[in-house]
């Protein structure tokens, strides 16, 4: 969508600040579950947001189209839709498309049209690029060059549902209680500098990477300039966007494990590094030297997810809240403990993680059969 700044940021502020509610739930055994509990949990933190943005990311959502890229696209005009659909037919094979079902919901005013497309990429279309890079480029093109359209999400077997309203209203509007997934993240927004809008709600998504975020990335400027060198264009002027692209760069393109990714984004202090064993010192110094421009400064908590994995962490001095709960194979991450206990009254354990320490749930190591999460606390 062109001229997004006019909608989202009419005063051309350098960045947009918000402070919000987060919740994530994952069944690390891969069992899919309804969003009913997650919706109740985020609704329980109603007062952390102000009705100007709510959203959900769901993984394991479209098993019947698991091999297709599921694009959720928002349209502000019929003209925008025609343009984008012509663009999609030109760049992809269209497997199936439909309007995302909605119901009239109090509190949801003047919603845009949201459609979903299940797309496949033919070999001839992306030539030397990887399929993933091809997808990222097409998403960037729609978001920056076409009018009145915005891509909510673009990954396989997952999607983002979001908009302007409280998260429980967005859930009702998109009938989310009818969907199932093995991993849900959700967000209630409290934007403080600019009007909220449908595309500016969290989660932010590129490919199947999603980010929900509470806080303020005060290093936004330097992070954005660094990411531009790799072809990521920050179009929304919302600080959370840089987290999504930074994670895509580090984990997908540079193939770094999640622990290393966390050490880049929330790097230990130099004084901490000096007390580590020599080998570890070398690694940590190297990371700070190579990826210094990706250090996220300022207060934040983020929950990052992609196919098969959910990661929660805070800034290194924990200026925003995050609490972890574990029950059997279920991993819960939340801004407030009460939201976890509301939907899981017999939870095994809850704890407050240390700043910068990633809490990871993964299908590769279900909680029951490994001590993956336990080890980190």
């Amino acid at each position, binding site marked *: 969508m062109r001229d997004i700044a006019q909608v989202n940021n009419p005063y051309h502020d350098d960045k947009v600040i918000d402070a919000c509610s987060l919740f994530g739930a994952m069944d690390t055994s891969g069992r899919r579950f309804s969003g009913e509990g997650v919706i109740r949990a985020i609704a*329980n*933190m109603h*007062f952390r947001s102000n009705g100007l943005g709510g959203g959900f990311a769901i993984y394991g959502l479209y098993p019947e189209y698991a091999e297709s890229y599921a694009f959720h696209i928002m349209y502000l005009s019929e003209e925008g839709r025609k343009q984008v659909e012509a663009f999609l037919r030109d760049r992809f094979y269209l497997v199936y498309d439909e309007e995302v079902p909605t119901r009239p919901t109090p509190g949801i005013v003047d919603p845009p049209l949201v459609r979903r497309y299940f797309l496949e990429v033919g070999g001839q279309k992306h030539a030397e690029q990887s399929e993933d890079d091809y997808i990222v480029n097409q998403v960037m093109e729609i978001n920056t060059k076409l009018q009145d359209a915005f891509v909510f999400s673009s990954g396989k077997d997952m999607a983002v549902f979001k908009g302007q309203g409280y998260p429980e209203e967005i859930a009702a509007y998109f009938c989310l209680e009818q969907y199932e997934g093995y991993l849900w993240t959700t967000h209630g927004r409290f934007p403080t500098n600019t009007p909220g809008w449908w595309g500016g709600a969290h989660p932010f998504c590129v490919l199947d990477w999603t980010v929900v975020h509470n806080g303020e990335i005060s290093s936004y400027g330097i992070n954005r300039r660094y990411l531009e060198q790799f072809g990521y264009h920050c179009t929304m002027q919302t600080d959370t966007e840089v987290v999504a692209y930074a994670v895509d760069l580090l984990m997908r393109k540079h193939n770094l494990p999640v622990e290393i990714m966390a050490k880049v984004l929330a790097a230990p202090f130099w*004084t*901490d590094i000096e*007390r580590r064993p020599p080998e570890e010192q070398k690694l940590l110094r190297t990371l700070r030297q190579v990826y210094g421009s990706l250090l996220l400064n300022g207060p934040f908590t983020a929950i990052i997810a992609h196919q098969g994995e959910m990661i929660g962490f805070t800034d290194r*001095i*924990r200026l925003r*809240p995050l*609490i972890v709960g574990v029950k059997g194979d279920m991993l819960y991450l939340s801004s*407030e*403990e*009460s*939201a976890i*206990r*509301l939907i899981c009254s017999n939870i095994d354990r*809850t*704890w*407050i993680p*240390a*700043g910068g320490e990633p809490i990871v749930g993964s299908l590769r190591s279900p909680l029951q059969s490994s001590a993956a999460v336990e080890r980190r606390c």
Partner: protein
Amino acid sequence: MANSVHNQMVKIDASGVLHRELNAKLRDEVANGTQKIQIHNVYGQRYIGTDLGKPVEIEIFGTPGNDLGAFMDGLRIIVHGNAQDGCGNTMNEGEIIVHGHAGDITGLAARGGKIFVRDDVGYRAGIHMKEYGDKKPVVVIGGTAQDFFGEYMAGGILILLGLNLNEGTRHRANFVGTGMHGGVIYLRGGIEDYQLGKEVGVAQIEEEDCQILQKFVSQFASHFGYDVGEILKHNFCKLFPRWLRPYGRLYAY
């Protein structure tokens, strides 16, 4: 909101009740002379116990929300569960007893009263606690604390017992007492110099300190069923502010 009156004791079911309604209900009950209130099914309702101003007792079953007992003045709150962030925010008088852990900034800016937490506390517990005359807040924590424990502390007493630390392990908190310029911290369990803020000094405890510990650790032990003698057998150290105005010269040229 179903409730039933037994003499002076009232039970409130907080299921699905918003914090505003719940606190209004508490104000009504206290105004009507209720001495004891039990609140069941508490899930995140904020500010419980604020604005009541009478020495009543509130027992909470569940997870009270942020700013539990904010500006609290003289009541006694017992939590059967964990407390969230900002427990005892700027409290003036009274007692909060948490049978579980408490979140970040426990006891922030407290100016009187006592908080007892059975397990751990999150980041910045005791931040900017203060004291004046006979108003002296006390926070006793049974477990361990996270970073910036006692940050910018200006008065009062923080006691960290480390009862859940294994033999030979130390507290993990860094930046303990950063910016501290008043009050005192008592620590049981090891801590290294580098974990302390630049503004604190370490001292052996003296007779006067032992009396303070005896008094408040006894209260802690009776709340949670510990043996005070067993706890006090171990070594304690005392952290004190080295300067009254640590940043007095920061912006002075």
